[in-house]
Protein backbone atom coordinates (compact mmCIF):
# COMPACT_ATOMS: atom_id res chain seq x y z
CA UNK A 1 0.00 0.00 0.00
CA UNK A 2 2.72 2.37 1.04
CA UNK A 3 4.82 1.39 -1.95
CA UNK A 4 1.89 1.91 -4.26
CA UNK A 5 1.39 5.43 -2.94
CA UNK A 6 5.05 6.20 -3.35
CA UNK A 7 5.00 4.90 -6.88
CA UNK A 8 1.91 6.90 -7.77
CA UNK A 9 2.95 10.28 -6.37
CA UNK A 10 6.69 9.97 -6.61
CA UNK A 11 7.15 10.92 -2.98
CA UNK A 12 6.88 9.51 0.48
CA UNK A 13 3.30 9.28 1.73
CA UNK A 14 2.76 11.75 4.49
CA UNK A 15 -0.11 11.41 6.90
CA UNK A 16 -1.10 12.46 10.38
CA UNK A 17 -2.42 9.10 11.56
CA UNK A 18 -0.50 7.38 14.31
CA UNK A 19 -1.27 5.12 17.27
CA UNK A 20 0.33 7.80 19.44
CA UNK A 21 -2.69 10.03 18.72
CA UNK A 22 -4.85 7.79 20.93
CA UNK A 23 -3.08 9.36 23.90
CA UNK A 24 -5.07 12.52 23.15
CA UNK A 25 -8.17 10.75 24.49
CA UNK A 26 -6.74 10.33 27.99
CA UNK A 27 -7.21 13.96 29.20
CA UNK A 28 -10.88 13.76 28.17
CA UNK A 29 -11.42 11.66 31.31
CA UNK A 30 -11.58 15.01 33.03
CA UNK A 31 -15.12 15.40 31.68
CA UNK A 32 -16.28 12.40 33.75
CA UNK A 33 -17.30 14.41 36.80
CA UNK A 34 -18.03 11.51 39.25
CA UNK A 35 -14.32 10.64 39.16
CA UNK A 36 -13.32 13.67 41.22
CA UNK A 37 -16.49 15.34 42.49
CA UNK A 38 -15.60 14.67 46.16
CA UNK A 39 -14.55 16.73 49.16
CA UNK A 40 -12.22 14.17 50.79
CA UNK A 41 -9.33 13.60 50.73
CA UNK A 42 -8.10 17.17 50.98
CA UNK A 43 -4.61 18.29 49.95
CA UNK A 44 -3.26 21.58 51.33
CA UNK A 45 -6.80 22.29 52.47
CA UNK A 46 -8.20 21.92 48.93
CA UNK A 47 -11.01 19.38 48.39
CA UNK A 48 -10.37 16.61 45.86
CA UNK A 49 -12.64 18.42 43.37
CA UNK A 50 -9.97 21.12 43.02
CA UNK A 51 -6.63 19.37 43.38
CA UNK A 52 -7.62 16.43 41.19
CA UNK A 53 -8.57 18.79 38.38
CA UNK A 54 -5.30 20.67 38.79
CA UNK A 55 -3.51 17.32 38.34
CA UNK A 56 -5.13 16.94 34.94
CA UNK A 57 -3.12 19.94 33.69
CA UNK A 58 0.27 18.13 33.79
CA UNK A 59 -1.43 14.93 32.61
CA UNK A 60 -2.72 16.78 29.55
CA UNK A 61 0.71 18.29 28.90
CA UNK A 62 2.40 14.88 29.05
CA UNK A 63 -0.13 13.27 26.69
CA UNK A 64 -0.02 16.09 24.13
CA UNK A 65 3.77 16.28 24.51
CA UNK A 66 4.26 12.60 23.66
CA UNK A 67 2.03 12.89 20.59
CA UNK A 68 3.90 15.99 19.47
CA UNK A 69 7.29 14.36 19.92
CA UNK A 70 6.25 11.36 17.84
CA UNK A 71 4.82 13.62 15.13
CA UNK A 72 7.92 15.80 14.95
CA UNK A 73 10.08 12.72 14.53
CA UNK A 74 7.84 11.36 11.81
CA UNK A 75 7.86 14.65 9.95
CA UNK A 76 11.64 14.96 10.13
CA UNK A 77 11.95 11.42 8.75
CA UNK A 78 9.68 12.25 5.85
CA UNK A 79 11.63 15.37 4.98
CA UNK A 80 14.93 13.44 4.97
CA UNK A 81 13.47 10.85 2.62
CA UNK A 82 12.74 13.54 0.11
CA UNK A 83 9.21 14.39 1.18
CA UNK A 84 9.86 18.05 0.44
CA UNK A 85 8.75 19.39 -2.86
Amino acid at each position, binding site marked *: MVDQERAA*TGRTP*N*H*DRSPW*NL*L*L*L*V*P*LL*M*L*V*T*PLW*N*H*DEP*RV*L*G*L*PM*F*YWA*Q*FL*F*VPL*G*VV*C*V*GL*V*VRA*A*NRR*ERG*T*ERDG*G*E*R
Partner: protein
Amino acid sequence: MQWTEFGVFTALFLLVSVMGFAASRWRRAASMEHLDEWGLGGRRFGSWITWFLVGGDLYTAYTFVAVPALVFGAGAMGFFALPYTVVLYPLVLLPLLRMWSVSKAHGYVTPADYVRGRYDSSLLATLVAVTGIVATMPYIALQLAGLEAVLRTMGLNGSGLAGHAPLFLAFVVLALYTYHSGLRAPALIAFVKDLLIYVVILVAVFYLPTQIGGWGSIIDDSAAVLSRPDPDTGQASGSILLGEHNQLQYATLALGSALSLFLYPHSLTGILASSGRRVIRRNMVALPAYSFLLGMLALLGYAALAIGVEPIVNGATGEPDSNTIVPVLFDRMFADWFAGLAYAAIGIGALVPAAIMSIAAANLWTRNIYKEHLRPGATPAQEAKQAKLASLVVKFGAVLSIVLIDPQFSIDMQLIGGVIVLQTLPAVAVALYTRWLHRWALVAGWGVGMSWGLWQLYLIPKDPVTGQGHFGGSAMPLSDFSLFGWQPLPDVRTQIYVGAVALLLNLLVAVVLTPVLRRSGASRGTDHTSPDDYLATGAGEGRERVEPGTDEVRAG
Protein backbone atom coordinates in the same frame (compact mmCIF):
# COMPACT_ATOMS: atom_id res chain seq x y z
CA MET B 1 -11.30 58.15 43.97
CA GLN B 2 -8.21 55.97 44.43
CA TRP B 3 -5.49 58.29 43.15
CA THR B 4 -2.43 56.07 43.65
CA GLU B 5 -4.11 53.14 41.97
CA PHE B 6 -5.35 55.35 39.21
CA GLY B 7 -1.90 56.91 38.66
CA VAL B 8 -0.12 53.54 38.32
CA PHE B 9 -2.92 52.25 36.10
CA THR B 10 -2.79 55.28 33.81
CA ALA B 11 1.02 55.27 33.54
CA LEU B 12 1.08 51.63 32.44
CA PHE B 13 -1.81 52.22 30.10
CA LEU B 14 0.01 55.10 28.42
CA LEU B 15 3.13 52.95 28.10
CA VAL B 16 1.31 50.26 26.15
CA SER B 17 -0.44 52.82 24.01
CA VAL B 18 2.95 54.20 22.92
CA MET B 19 4.11 50.65 22.23
CA GLY B 20 1.01 50.09 20.17
CA PHE B 21 1.78 53.01 17.92
CA ALA B 22 5.44 52.03 17.64
CA ALA B 23 4.51 48.44 16.77
CA SER B 24 3.93 49.20 13.13
CA ARG B 25 7.71 49.64 12.76
CA TRP B 26 8.44 46.28 14.35
CA ARG B 27 9.62 43.67 11.82
CA ARG B 28 8.41 46.09 9.26
CA ALA B 29 7.20 44.81 5.94
CA ALA B 30 7.47 46.59 2.61
CA SER B 31 3.88 47.75 2.93
CA MET B 32 1.22 47.63 5.61
CA GLU B 33 -1.37 48.22 2.92
CA HIS B 34 -1.86 44.49 2.51
CA LEU B 35 -4.24 42.31 4.43
CA ASP B 36 -1.69 39.54 4.94
CA GLU B 37 0.59 42.11 6.57
CA TRP B 38 -1.96 44.04 8.60
CA GLY B 39 -4.04 41.03 9.54
CA LEU B 40 -1.58 38.14 9.90
CA GLY B 41 1.67 39.96 10.68
CA GLY B 42 3.10 38.43 7.49
CA ARG B 43 2.63 34.80 8.70
CA ARG B 44 6.07 34.86 10.27
CA PHE B 45 5.46 34.52 14.02
CA GLY B 46 7.69 31.97 15.77
CA SER B 47 7.04 29.90 18.90
CA TRP B 48 7.44 32.64 21.49
CA ILE B 49 5.36 35.27 19.77
CA THR B 50 2.67 32.70 19.01
CA TRP B 51 2.66 31.64 22.65
CA PHE B 52 2.12 35.19 23.84
CA LEU B 53 -0.33 35.97 21.07
CA VAL B 54 -2.55 32.89 21.39
CA GLY B 55 -2.21 32.84 25.18
CA GLY B 56 -3.00 36.53 25.10
CA ASP B 57 -6.34 35.98 23.49
CA LEU B 58 -7.30 32.87 25.35
CA TYR B 59 -6.62 34.14 28.83
CA THR B 60 -8.25 37.48 29.18
CA ALA B 61 -10.72 39.42 31.28
CA TYR B 62 -12.54 36.08 31.06
CA THR B 63 -9.88 34.57 33.31
CA PHE B 64 -9.31 37.48 35.62
CA VAL B 65 -12.82 38.74 36.09
CA ALA B 66 -15.57 36.50 34.71
CA VAL B 67 -14.40 33.11 36.04
CA PRO B 68 -13.74 34.26 39.64
CA ALA B 69 -17.07 36.13 39.54
CA LEU B 70 -18.87 32.88 38.69
CA VAL B 71 -17.03 31.00 41.45
CA PHE B 72 -17.95 33.82 43.83
CA GLY B 73 -21.60 33.58 42.84
CA ALA B 74 -22.13 29.85 42.21
CA GLY B 75 -19.14 27.94 43.62
CA ALA B 76 -17.85 24.77 41.96
CA MET B 77 -19.66 25.44 38.68
CA GLY B 78 -17.28 28.31 37.94
CA PHE B 79 -14.38 25.90 37.93
CA PHE B 80 -15.54 24.45 34.56
CA ALA B 81 -13.05 26.81 32.97
CA LEU B 82 -10.21 24.56 34.12
CA PRO B 83 -11.38 21.38 32.34
CA TYR B 84 -12.19 23.63 29.37
CA THR B 85 -8.57 24.69 29.02
CA VAL B 86 -7.26 21.17 29.70
CA VAL B 87 -9.36 19.19 27.18
CA LEU B 88 -8.91 22.03 24.67
CA TYR B 89 -5.38 21.19 23.49
CA PRO B 90 -5.73 17.44 22.92
CA LEU B 91 -8.97 18.12 21.04
CA VAL B 92 -7.65 20.78 18.68
CA LEU B 93 -4.03 19.73 18.11
CA LEU B 94 -4.60 17.61 14.99
CA PRO B 95 -7.36 19.69 13.33
CA LEU B 96 -5.37 22.90 13.78
CA LEU B 97 -2.32 21.43 12.07
CA ARG B 98 -4.47 20.48 9.10
CA MET B 99 -6.04 23.95 9.10
CA TRP B 100 -2.66 25.66 9.14
CA SER B 101 -1.33 23.53 6.28
CA VAL B 102 -4.29 23.93 3.98
CA SER B 103 -4.43 27.67 4.71
CA LYS B 104 -0.76 28.06 3.96
CA ALA B 105 -1.06 26.10 0.72
CA HIS B 106 -3.94 28.25 -0.56
CA GLY B 107 -3.32 31.59 1.12
CA TYR B 108 -6.45 31.36 3.29
CA VAL B 109 -6.68 34.04 5.98
CA THR B 110 -10.06 33.18 7.54
CA PRO B 111 -12.13 30.04 8.24
CA ALA B 112 -14.64 31.25 5.64
CA ASP B 113 -11.88 31.33 2.98
CA TYR B 114 -11.30 27.69 3.71
CA VAL B 115 -14.99 26.76 3.58
CA ARG B 116 -15.30 28.49 0.23
CA GLY B 117 -12.35 26.55 -1.17
CA ARG B 118 -13.49 23.25 0.29
CA TYR B 119 -17.17 23.41 -0.64
CA ASP B 120 -17.17 25.83 -3.55
CA SER B 121 -20.13 27.53 -1.89
CA SER B 122 -20.30 31.27 -1.57
CA LEU B 123 -23.41 31.02 0.60
CA LEU B 124 -21.83 28.66 3.12
CA ALA B 125 -18.68 30.80 3.30
CA THR B 126 -20.76 33.92 3.89
CA LEU B 127 -22.74 32.20 6.65
CA VAL B 128 -19.49 31.15 8.35
CA ALA B 129 -18.14 34.70 8.06
CA VAL B 130 -21.27 36.36 9.43
CA THR B 131 -21.46 33.82 12.28
CA GLY B 132 -17.85 34.53 13.23
CA ILE B 133 -18.37 38.29 13.25
CA VAL B 134 -21.57 38.12 15.32
CA ALA B 135 -20.17 35.57 17.80
CA THR B 136 -17.10 37.74 18.39
CA MET B 137 -19.10 40.75 19.53
CA PRO B 138 -20.33 39.39 22.90
CA TYR B 139 -16.83 38.03 23.52
CA ILE B 140 -15.37 41.51 23.03
CA ALA B 141 -18.17 42.82 25.23
CA LEU B 142 -16.93 40.52 28.00
CA GLN B 143 -13.55 42.23 27.77
CA LEU B 144 -15.29 45.58 28.05
CA ALA B 145 -17.13 44.41 31.13
CA GLY B 146 -13.80 43.46 32.73
CA LEU B 147 -12.26 46.82 31.98
CA GLU B 148 -15.35 48.58 33.23
CA ALA B 149 -15.19 46.67 36.52
CA VAL B 150 -11.62 47.88 37.10
CA LEU B 151 -12.45 51.49 36.32
CA ARG B 152 -15.45 51.44 38.62
CA THR B 153 -13.43 49.94 41.46
CA MET B 154 -10.95 52.80 41.13
CA GLY B 155 -13.76 55.24 41.65
CA LEU B 156 -14.79 56.10 38.08
CA ASN B 157 -18.29 55.03 38.91
CA GLY B 158 -20.47 57.79 37.55
CA SER B 159 -24.15 57.38 36.89
CA GLY B 160 -26.11 57.66 33.68
CA LEU B 161 -24.30 58.39 30.45
CA ALA B 162 -21.23 59.82 32.20
CA GLY B 163 -20.78 56.42 33.86
CA HIS B 164 -19.85 54.91 30.51
CA ALA B 165 -17.37 57.67 29.57
CA PRO B 166 -14.08 56.08 30.83
CA LEU B 167 -14.87 52.88 29.00
CA PHE B 168 -15.53 54.75 25.83
CA LEU B 169 -12.22 56.62 26.14
CA ALA B 170 -10.21 53.43 26.63
CA PHE B 171 -11.76 51.96 23.56
CA VAL B 172 -10.99 54.97 21.44
CA VAL B 173 -7.30 54.54 22.36
CA LEU B 174 -7.46 50.86 21.50
CA ALA B 175 -9.29 51.48 18.26
CA LEU B 176 -6.78 54.07 17.13
CA TYR B 177 -3.66 52.03 17.62
CA THR B 178 -5.15 48.82 16.27
CA TYR B 179 -6.17 50.84 13.24
CA HIS B 180 -2.60 51.96 12.77
CA SER B 181 -0.57 48.82 13.44
CA GLY B 182 -2.80 45.82 12.85
CA LEU B 183 -1.90 42.55 14.48
CA ARG B 184 1.58 43.77 15.40
CA ALA B 185 0.16 46.04 18.11
CA PRO B 186 -1.47 43.34 20.25
CA ALA B 187 1.39 40.89 19.64
CA LEU B 188 3.91 43.34 21.05
CA ILE B 189 1.72 44.51 23.92
CA ALA B 190 0.98 40.88 24.81
CA PHE B 191 4.52 40.66 26.22
CA VAL B 192 3.91 43.49 28.68
CA LYS B 193 0.49 42.17 29.50
CA ASP B 194 1.69 38.68 30.30
CA LEU B 195 4.59 39.94 32.38
CA LEU B 196 2.20 42.05 34.47
CA ILE B 197 -0.30 39.23 34.74
CA TYR B 198 2.28 36.69 35.88
CA VAL B 199 3.57 39.01 38.60
CA VAL B 200 0.08 39.78 39.83
CA ILE B 201 -1.16 36.19 39.74
CA LEU B 202 1.84 34.74 41.51
CA VAL B 203 1.55 37.29 44.28
CA ALA B 204 -2.21 36.88 44.47
CA VAL B 205 -2.32 33.10 44.66
CA PHE B 206 0.60 32.63 47.01
CA TYR B 207 0.41 35.69 49.26
CA LEU B 208 -3.35 36.16 49.62
CA PRO B 209 -4.24 32.72 51.05
CA THR B 210 -1.61 33.06 53.79
CA GLN B 211 -3.22 36.36 54.80
CA ILE B 212 -6.69 34.85 54.97
CA GLY B 213 -5.79 31.64 56.81
CA GLY B 214 -4.97 29.07 54.14
CA TRP B 215 -7.08 27.29 51.53
CA GLY B 216 -8.73 24.93 54.02
CA SER B 217 -10.45 27.70 55.94
CA ILE B 218 -11.12 29.74 52.78
CA ILE B 219 -13.01 26.81 51.25
CA ASP B 220 -14.91 26.05 54.47
CA ASP B 221 -15.94 29.69 54.93
CA SER B 222 -17.03 29.86 51.30
CA ALA B 223 -19.05 26.67 51.64
CA ALA B 224 -20.88 28.24 54.58
CA VAL B 225 -21.63 31.46 52.67
CA LEU B 226 -22.75 29.63 49.52
CA SER B 227 -25.11 27.31 51.38
CA ARG B 228 -26.98 30.19 53.00
CA PRO B 229 -30.48 30.31 51.51
CA ASP B 230 -31.09 33.23 49.18
CA PRO B 231 -33.81 35.51 50.67
CA ASP B 232 -35.62 35.64 47.29
CA THR B 233 -35.57 32.01 46.18
CA GLY B 234 -35.02 30.19 49.49
CA GLN B 235 -32.34 28.10 47.79
CA ALA B 236 -28.57 27.99 48.32
CA SER B 237 -26.70 30.11 45.76
CA GLY B 238 -24.11 27.42 45.15
CA SER B 239 -21.80 24.85 46.69
CA ILE B 240 -18.15 23.86 46.67
CA LEU B 241 -18.95 20.57 44.93
CA LEU B 242 -21.22 19.83 41.98
CA GLY B 243 -24.76 18.75 42.76
CA GLU B 244 -26.93 16.16 41.02
CA HIS B 245 -28.36 18.56 38.44
CA ASN B 246 -25.29 20.42 37.26
CA GLN B 247 -22.67 17.78 36.50
CA LEU B 248 -23.77 17.42 32.89
CA GLN B 249 -23.81 21.20 32.60
CA TYR B 250 -20.26 21.34 33.94
CA ALA B 251 -18.99 18.79 31.42
CA THR B 252 -20.88 20.22 28.45
CA LEU B 253 -19.79 23.77 29.26
CA ALA B 254 -16.17 22.63 29.33
CA LEU B 255 -16.46 20.55 26.17
CA GLY B 256 -18.55 23.14 24.31
CA SER B 257 -16.14 25.93 25.21
CA ALA B 258 -13.17 23.83 24.10
CA LEU B 259 -14.78 22.93 20.77
CA SER B 260 -15.82 26.51 20.10
CA LEU B 261 -12.60 28.33 20.97
CA PHE B 262 -10.68 27.76 17.76
CA LEU B 263 -13.78 28.35 15.67
CA TYR B 264 -13.65 31.99 16.75
CA PRO B 265 -11.87 33.89 14.02
CA HIS B 266 -9.45 35.52 16.47
CA SER B 267 -8.02 32.30 17.91
CA LEU B 268 -7.54 30.93 14.43
CA THR B 269 -5.79 34.17 13.46
CA GLY B 270 -3.13 33.52 16.10
CA ILE B 271 -2.59 30.01 14.72
CA LEU B 272 -2.51 31.02 11.06
CA ALA B 273 -0.03 33.81 11.83
CA SER B 274 2.50 31.27 13.11
CA SER B 275 5.35 30.23 10.89
CA GLY B 276 4.94 26.45 10.86
CA ARG B 277 3.44 23.20 12.09
CA ARG B 278 6.19 22.69 14.59
CA VAL B 279 5.49 26.11 16.13
CA ILE B 280 1.85 25.11 16.62
CA ARG B 281 2.74 21.74 18.13
CA ARG B 282 5.17 23.28 20.58
CA ASN B 283 2.49 25.77 21.62
CA MET B 284 -0.12 23.10 22.25
CA VAL B 285 2.28 21.69 24.84
CA ALA B 286 3.29 25.05 26.33
CA LEU B 287 -0.06 26.86 26.46
CA PRO B 288 -1.46 24.85 29.41
CA ALA B 289 0.94 26.81 31.62
CA TYR B 290 -1.80 29.41 31.45
CA SER B 291 -4.42 26.83 32.49
CA PHE B 292 -2.75 26.39 35.83
CA LEU B 293 -2.94 30.12 36.49
CA LEU B 294 -6.55 30.18 35.37
CA GLY B 295 -7.44 27.58 37.99
CA MET B 296 -5.59 29.52 40.67
CA LEU B 297 -7.41 32.71 39.71
CA ALA B 298 -10.74 30.93 39.84
CA LEU B 299 -10.00 30.12 43.48
CA LEU B 300 -9.69 33.85 44.18
CA GLY B 301 -13.49 33.88 43.92
CA TYR B 302 -13.47 31.86 47.16
CA ALA B 303 -10.89 34.17 48.74
CA ALA B 304 -13.29 37.05 48.08
CA LEU B 305 -16.21 35.09 49.59
CA ALA B 306 -14.20 34.17 52.66
CA ILE B 307 -13.27 37.74 53.56
CA GLY B 308 -16.77 39.00 52.78
CA VAL B 309 -16.12 41.14 49.69
CA GLU B 310 -19.21 43.03 48.54
CA PRO B 311 -19.44 43.71 44.79
CA ILE B 312 -19.54 47.39 43.84
CA VAL B 313 -22.88 48.76 42.73
CA ASN B 314 -22.67 49.85 39.10
CA GLY B 315 -23.50 53.56 39.07
CA ALA B 316 -24.92 53.40 35.56
CA THR B 317 -27.35 50.51 36.12
CA GLY B 318 -27.85 50.59 39.89
CA GLU B 319 -27.17 46.84 40.22
CA PRO B 320 -24.29 45.11 42.06
CA ASP B 321 -21.60 44.19 39.52
CA SER B 322 -20.15 40.78 40.39
CA ASN B 323 -17.29 41.46 37.97
CA THR B 324 -15.81 43.82 40.53
CA ILE B 325 -15.12 41.18 43.19
CA VAL B 326 -11.48 40.48 42.21
CA PRO B 327 -10.64 44.19 41.84
CA VAL B 328 -12.25 44.86 45.23
CA LEU B 329 -10.35 41.94 46.74
CA PHE B 330 -7.07 43.42 45.44
CA ASP B 331 -8.04 46.84 46.73
CA ARG B 332 -8.59 45.45 50.21
CA MET B 333 -5.60 43.14 50.40
CA PHE B 334 -2.82 44.96 48.49
CA ALA B 335 -0.93 48.23 48.81
CA ASP B 336 -2.41 50.89 46.53
CA TRP B 337 0.47 50.90 44.05
CA PHE B 338 0.30 47.13 43.65
CA ALA B 339 -3.47 47.21 43.25
CA GLY B 340 -2.93 49.79 40.50
CA LEU B 341 -0.47 47.43 38.83
CA ALA B 342 -2.97 44.59 39.08
CA TYR B 343 -5.72 46.75 37.57
CA ALA B 344 -3.43 47.64 34.69
CA ALA B 345 -2.80 43.91 34.15
CA ILE B 346 -6.55 43.28 34.02
CA GLY B 347 -7.21 46.32 31.81
CA ILE B 348 -4.45 45.57 29.32
CA GLY B 349 -5.39 41.90 29.52
CA ALA B 350 -8.82 42.93 28.26
CA LEU B 351 -7.56 45.24 25.53
CA VAL B 352 -5.10 42.85 23.84
CA PRO B 353 -7.68 40.18 23.08
CA ALA B 354 -10.27 42.79 22.20
CA ALA B 355 -7.84 44.12 19.58
CA ILE B 356 -7.08 40.67 18.19
CA MET B 357 -10.77 39.78 18.10
CA SER B 358 -11.74 42.91 16.24
CA ILE B 359 -8.91 42.44 13.73
CA ALA B 360 -10.02 38.90 13.04
CA ALA B 361 -13.64 39.91 12.63
CA ALA B 362 -12.46 42.65 10.27
CA ASN B 363 -10.54 40.14 8.18
CA LEU B 364 -13.73 38.13 7.83
CA TRP B 365 -15.72 41.14 6.74
CA THR B 366 -13.15 42.21 4.18
CA ARG B 367 -12.28 38.90 2.57
CA ASN B 368 -15.57 37.11 2.75
CA ILE B 369 -18.21 39.79 2.47
CA TYR B 370 -16.69 42.97 1.00
CA LYS B 371 -14.47 41.30 -1.58
CA GLU B 372 -16.84 38.45 -2.21
CA HIS B 373 -20.04 40.38 -2.69
CA LEU B 374 -19.52 44.13 -2.69
CA ARG B 375 -16.31 44.76 -4.60
CA PRO B 376 -14.75 41.67 -6.19
CA GLY B 377 -11.99 43.65 -7.91
CA ALA B 378 -10.69 45.42 -4.79
CA THR B 379 -6.96 46.13 -4.67
CA PRO B 380 -4.90 44.96 -1.66
CA ALA B 381 -4.76 48.56 -0.43
CA GLN B 382 -8.54 48.87 -0.61
CA GLU B 383 -8.89 45.59 1.28
CA ALA B 384 -6.58 46.73 4.08
CA LYS B 385 -8.53 49.98 4.33
CA GLN B 386 -11.83 48.13 4.59
CA ALA B 387 -10.44 45.83 7.28
CA LYS B 388 -9.29 48.80 9.35
CA LEU B 389 -12.70 50.44 9.12
CA ALA B 390 -14.49 47.18 9.89
CA SER B 391 -12.37 46.65 13.02
CA LEU B 392 -13.68 49.98 14.31
CA VAL B 393 -17.27 49.02 13.57
CA VAL B 394 -16.90 45.67 15.39
CA LYS B 395 -15.51 47.39 18.50
CA PHE B 396 -18.41 49.74 18.66
CA GLY B 397 -20.77 46.83 18.03
CA ALA B 398 -19.33 45.25 21.16
CA VAL B 399 -20.00 48.41 23.15
CA LEU B 400 -23.60 48.13 22.03
CA SER B 401 -23.93 44.46 22.95
CA ILE B 402 -22.75 45.18 26.50
CA VAL B 403 -25.81 47.38 26.79
CA LEU B 404 -28.22 45.01 25.03
CA ILE B 405 -27.15 41.64 26.53
CA ASP B 406 -26.61 41.87 30.26
CA PRO B 407 -26.69 38.38 31.77
CA GLN B 408 -26.41 37.63 35.48
CA PHE B 409 -22.79 36.49 35.04
CA SER B 410 -20.58 38.14 32.44
CA ILE B 411 -19.10 34.74 31.52
CA ASP B 412 -22.42 33.98 29.85
CA MET B 413 -21.57 36.53 27.17
CA GLN B 414 -18.70 34.33 26.09
CA LEU B 415 -20.91 31.26 26.39
CA ILE B 416 -23.63 32.87 24.27
CA GLY B 417 -20.96 33.64 21.67
CA GLY B 418 -20.02 29.97 21.93
CA VAL B 419 -23.54 28.79 21.14
CA ILE B 420 -23.40 30.90 17.97
CA VAL B 421 -19.90 30.01 16.77
CA LEU B 422 -20.31 26.27 17.49
CA GLN B 423 -22.78 26.12 14.60
CA THR B 424 -19.87 26.49 12.18
CA LEU B 425 -18.14 23.36 13.52
CA PRO B 426 -19.56 20.96 10.90
CA ALA B 427 -18.61 23.25 7.99
CA VAL B 428 -15.14 24.15 9.29
CA ALA B 429 -13.78 21.44 11.60
CA VAL B 430 -15.53 18.32 10.30
CA ALA B 431 -14.61 19.44 6.78
CA LEU B 432 -10.93 19.17 7.67
CA TYR B 433 -11.39 15.41 7.81
CA THR B 434 -14.21 14.55 5.44
CA ARG B 435 -16.22 16.15 2.68
CA TRP B 436 -19.00 13.61 3.07
CA LEU B 437 -21.54 16.16 4.36
CA HIS B 438 -23.33 17.89 1.51
CA ARG B 439 -22.93 21.66 1.34
CA TRP B 440 -26.68 22.30 1.34
CA ALA B 441 -27.10 19.91 4.28
CA LEU B 442 -24.51 22.01 6.12
CA VAL B 443 -26.47 25.16 5.33
CA ALA B 444 -29.67 23.55 6.64
CA GLY B 445 -27.93 22.22 9.78
CA TRP B 446 -26.52 25.67 10.44
CA GLY B 447 -29.98 27.18 10.09
CA VAL B 448 -31.62 24.73 12.48
CA GLY B 449 -28.84 24.81 15.10
CA MET B 450 -28.59 28.59 15.02
CA SER B 451 -32.28 29.39 15.19
CA TRP B 452 -32.99 26.78 17.87
CA GLY B 453 -29.97 27.88 19.94
CA LEU B 454 -30.80 31.58 19.77
CA TRP B 455 -34.46 30.89 20.58
CA GLN B 456 -33.48 28.88 23.68
CA LEU B 457 -31.09 31.61 24.81
CA TYR B 458 -33.85 34.16 24.36
CA LEU B 459 -36.12 32.08 26.59
CA ILE B 460 -33.67 32.00 29.52
CA PRO B 461 -34.92 34.67 31.92
CA LYS B 462 -32.56 37.34 33.16
CA ASP B 463 -34.15 37.25 36.58
CA PRO B 464 -34.60 33.60 37.66
CA VAL B 465 -36.90 34.57 40.52
CA THR B 466 -39.53 36.49 38.56
CA GLY B 467 -38.84 34.82 35.20
CA GLN B 468 -38.54 38.27 33.60
CA GLY B 469 -36.16 39.25 30.80
CA HIS B 470 -34.12 37.33 28.23
CA PHE B 471 -30.57 36.12 27.51
CA GLY B 472 -29.98 35.58 31.22
CA GLY B 473 -27.62 32.61 30.89
CA SER B 474 -26.45 29.72 28.75
CA ALA B 475 -27.81 26.54 30.38
CA MET B 476 -31.27 24.98 30.30
CA PRO B 477 -32.88 22.07 32.16
CA LEU B 478 -33.47 19.03 29.92
CA SER B 479 -37.14 19.21 30.91
CA ASP B 480 -37.44 22.40 28.83
CA PHE B 481 -36.21 20.65 25.69
CA SER B 482 -39.02 20.56 23.18
CA LEU B 483 -39.40 19.79 19.49
CA PHE B 484 -42.49 21.55 18.14
CA GLY B 485 -44.19 21.19 21.50
CA TRP B 486 -43.12 17.58 22.13
CA GLN B 487 -41.12 17.34 25.35
CA PRO B 488 -39.20 14.06 25.47
CA LEU B 489 -37.81 14.55 29.00
CA PRO B 490 -40.46 16.42 30.99
CA ASP B 491 -39.23 15.41 34.46
CA VAL B 492 -35.45 15.64 34.08
CA ARG B 493 -34.10 18.69 35.89
CA THR B 494 -30.52 18.05 34.81
CA GLN B 495 -29.01 21.22 33.30
CA ILE B 496 -27.14 21.26 29.99
CA TYR B 497 -25.28 23.86 27.92
CA VAL B 498 -27.56 25.13 25.16
CA GLY B 499 -24.63 25.12 22.69
CA ALA B 500 -24.13 21.37 23.05
CA VAL B 501 -27.78 20.61 22.19
CA ALA B 502 -27.83 23.10 19.32
CA LEU B 503 -24.68 21.56 17.83
CA LEU B 504 -26.16 18.06 18.07
CA LEU B 505 -29.31 19.20 16.26
CA ASN B 506 -27.13 20.89 13.63
CA LEU B 507 -25.11 17.72 13.02
CA LEU B 508 -28.22 15.56 13.01
CA VAL B 509 -29.88 17.66 10.32
CA ALA B 510 -26.69 17.71 8.23
CA VAL B 511 -26.25 13.93 8.46
CA VAL B 512 -29.87 13.14 7.66
CA LEU B 513 -30.12 15.51 4.70
CA THR B 514 -26.81 14.54 3.08
CA PRO B 515 -27.97 11.21 1.56
CA VAL B 516 -31.25 12.82 0.49
CA LEU B 517 -29.46 15.62 -1.34
CA ARG B 518 -27.04 13.22 -2.95
CA ARG B 519 -29.85 11.10 -4.31
CA SER B 520 -31.61 14.18 -5.63
CA GLY B 521 -28.46 14.98 -7.59
CA ALA B 522 -27.86 18.44 -6.10
CA SER B 523 -24.38 19.64 -7.12
CA ARG B 524 -21.67 19.03 -4.54
CA GLY B 525 -19.38 21.70 -5.95
CA THR B 526 -15.67 21.39 -6.70
CA ASP B 527 -13.19 20.76 -3.92
CA HIS B 528 -10.30 23.17 -4.48
CA THR B 529 -8.13 21.47 -1.86
CA SER B 530 -6.27 18.19 -2.26
CA PRO B 531 -5.49 15.64 0.48
CA ASP B 532 -1.80 16.60 0.41
CA ASP B 533 -2.60 20.24 1.25
CA TYR B 534 -3.68 19.23 4.74
CA LEU B 535 -0.30 17.75 5.55
CA ALA B 536 2.04 20.23 3.87
CA THR B 537 4.88 20.92 6.27
CA GLY B 538 5.33 24.40 4.87
CA ALA B 539 8.52 23.40 3.08
CA GLY B 540 10.19 26.55 1.85
CA GLU B 541 8.44 28.52 4.59
CA GLY B 542 8.94 32.22 4.13
CA ARG B 543 10.75 31.75 0.84
CA GLU B 544 7.67 31.46 -1.28
CA ARG B 545 4.74 33.66 -0.38
CA VAL B 546 1.38 32.39 -1.51
CA GLU B 547 -0.61 35.43 -2.50
CA PRO B 548 -4.31 35.38 -1.72
CA GLY B 549 -6.20 34.65 -4.88
CA THR B 550 -3.64 32.39 -6.51
CA ASP B 551 -5.58 29.33 -5.39
CA GLU B 552 -8.12 29.80 -8.17
CA VAL B 553 -5.31 29.59 -10.69
CA ARG B 554 -3.93 26.42 -9.11
CA ALA B 555 -7.30 24.77 -8.85
CA GLY B 556 -8.23 25.61 -12.45
